[in-house]
């Protein structure tokens, strides 16, 4: 098995980098310079960068080094460079939401998530590429971004996933230690799976969305892309907590302490997926289940007993809320500056949704969430392949993809459940595959313990892309 000590420094975990900083084996200035160089070279070559922040980052790194040297307040994140999806506002940056039609939305303040990481001592090194407007109107291909198609560090002919495309690609390329992303339906878990990194989608309401672009008020979540589940726990500890500026954010604070957990007490369900057309996924998934058994878990088959049309309701609500959020822009003559014309059409169509139909969808959602949550009477955790497909080719429309997409994004996002995607192997084209663990609302601790235990017994998350 590969050890983290075998990896080049850019690919080490936050936990490891923090130890290097504490021991004085590296300075934050050196670390930040290294990541800035990699963002400029590798990050830009994958179209993963929206805006570099070298002056700010190097000044902040100097401050972090001084804090460490003088014994001032410091955390595990002090001096650790990170990237933020261009959906988040940040002081001194141009926030464009991935859109060629938005020169700068003019939010010259730190989004709550950016501020929380800065407050913990982390250093914002770059704003990262994303699908324009987080893909709210749906989109036809990888090119739906102001920065062009975000390329996959495992194979440049394939897409990095979206909408947190740059966050996934930059972490995979060792261009940042970690990144902020967001998910409404799949925007963290998909790039995590495609890029072979670890992606945490916390519970709806766990992390404040203040200063983040709204796509769907009732479904948007701030997410994390990092190298390990342990790193996700470190970051979630800095990010979680109520915020009066985001009425949805009522969640409690979070304190991640890796270590012993009672695996035998956790009831784990395997969500059924038809993998007959994707034997490589099935093989990797069954091996992952075997590893979970080695971790002391006893997964058994599980099934969501649903009559409500969950995926349709989720699509409808995102369409209605996304078009409402961006109504003035959609009606303006700037709409046609978006890169993807399918997205233009989808945003326009969403304006035709009437109030009574939207409320009906929310009524069905209440019933659907009630049905979905019944599963937690029998289980504490669910496990499934994140997706049934590898990263899609970058030069072909998504509709041309013949492999079933799979995924658990509709139920999980409609109900606001937390989930984490972990690397679990490789598909037929040697591209990463993801394992998804899903938990009840606010049960991130169990989720992270199991994910951490899985990564202690595997090295899929330590494999490096050949392109970098």
């Amino acid at each position, binding site marked *: 098995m590969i050890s983290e000590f075998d990896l080049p420094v850019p690919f080490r975990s936050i936990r490891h980098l923090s130890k290097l900083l504490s021991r004085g084996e590296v300075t934050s200035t050196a670390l930040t310079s290294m990541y800035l160089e990699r963002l400029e070279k590798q990050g830009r070559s994958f179209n993963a960068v929206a805006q570099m922040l070298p002056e700010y980052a190097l000044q902040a790194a100097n401050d972090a080094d001084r804090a460490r040297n003088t014994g001032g307040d410091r955390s595990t994140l002090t001096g650790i460079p990170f990237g933020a999806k261009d959906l988040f506002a940040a002081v001194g940056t141009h926030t464009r939401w991935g859109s060629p039609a938005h020169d700068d939305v003019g939010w010259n303040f730190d989004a709550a998530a950016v501020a929380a990481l800065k407050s913990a001592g982390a250093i914002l090194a770059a704003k990262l590429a994303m699908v324009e407007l987080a893909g709210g*109107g749906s989109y036809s291909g990888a090119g739906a971004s102001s920065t062009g198609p975000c390329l996959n560090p495992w194979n440049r002919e394939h897409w990095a996933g979206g909408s947190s495309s740059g966050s996934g690609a930059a972490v995979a390329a060792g261009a940042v230690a970690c990144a902020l992303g967001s998910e409404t339906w799949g925007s963290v878990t998909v790039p995590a799976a495609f890029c072979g990194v670890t992606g945490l989608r916390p*519970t*709806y*309401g766990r992390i404040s969305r203040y200063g983040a672009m709204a796509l769907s*008020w*009732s479904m948007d979540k701030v997410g994390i892309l990092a190298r390990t589940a342990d790193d996700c726990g470190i970051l979630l500890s800095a990010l979680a907590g109520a915020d009066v500026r985001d009425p*949805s954010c*009522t*969640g*409690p604070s979070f304190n991640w302490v890796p270590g012993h957990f009672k695996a035998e007490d956790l009831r784990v369900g395997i969500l059924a997926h038809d993998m007959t057309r994707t034997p490589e996924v099935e093989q990797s998934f069954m091996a992952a289940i075997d590893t979970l058994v080695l971790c002391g878990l006893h997964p058994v088959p599980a099934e969501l007993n649903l*009559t*409500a*049309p969950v995926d*349709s*309701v989720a*699509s*409808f609500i995102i*369409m209605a809320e996304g078009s409402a959020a961006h109504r003035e822009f959609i*009606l*303006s*003559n700037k709409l*046609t500056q978006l890169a993807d*014309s*399918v997205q*233009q*059409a*989808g945003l*326009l*169509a*969403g*304006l*035709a*949704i*009437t109030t009574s*139909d939207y*409320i*009906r*969808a*929310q*009524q*069905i*959602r*209440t*019933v659907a*969430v*009630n*049905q979905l*949550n019944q599963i937690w009477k029998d289980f504490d955790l669910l496990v499934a392949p994140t997706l049934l497909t590898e990263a899609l080719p970058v030069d072909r429309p998504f509709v041309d993809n013949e492999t079933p997409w799979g995924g658990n994004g509709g139920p999980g996002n*409609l*109900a*606001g*459940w937390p989930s984490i995607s972990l690397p679990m192997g490789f598909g037929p084209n040697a591209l990463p595959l993801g394992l998804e663990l899903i938990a009840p*609302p*606010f049960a991130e601790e169990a989720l992270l313990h199991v994910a951490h235990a899985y990564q202690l017994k595997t090295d899929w998350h330590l494999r490096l892309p050949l392109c970098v």
Partner: protein
Amino acid sequence: MDSGYSRDVFDAAIRPMLANSLSAELESLLQKSLQQLDGLLDTIHQFDVESVSEPALAFQATLRTGNATE
């Protein structure tokens, strides 16, 4: 849901507010999106929300969706 319902709503309520007229390509894509929206509406209206085991749930529709508490 009648086929063309979303198109009718769009033409009556939205199209007059557009800053520009749409290109032929965008108009064609819009018609497809409106048809897809009709499909979603069909699915939503076919689900009898009052017939579920706990019909009172249907009157609890809220933007805070059952996960804001531990």
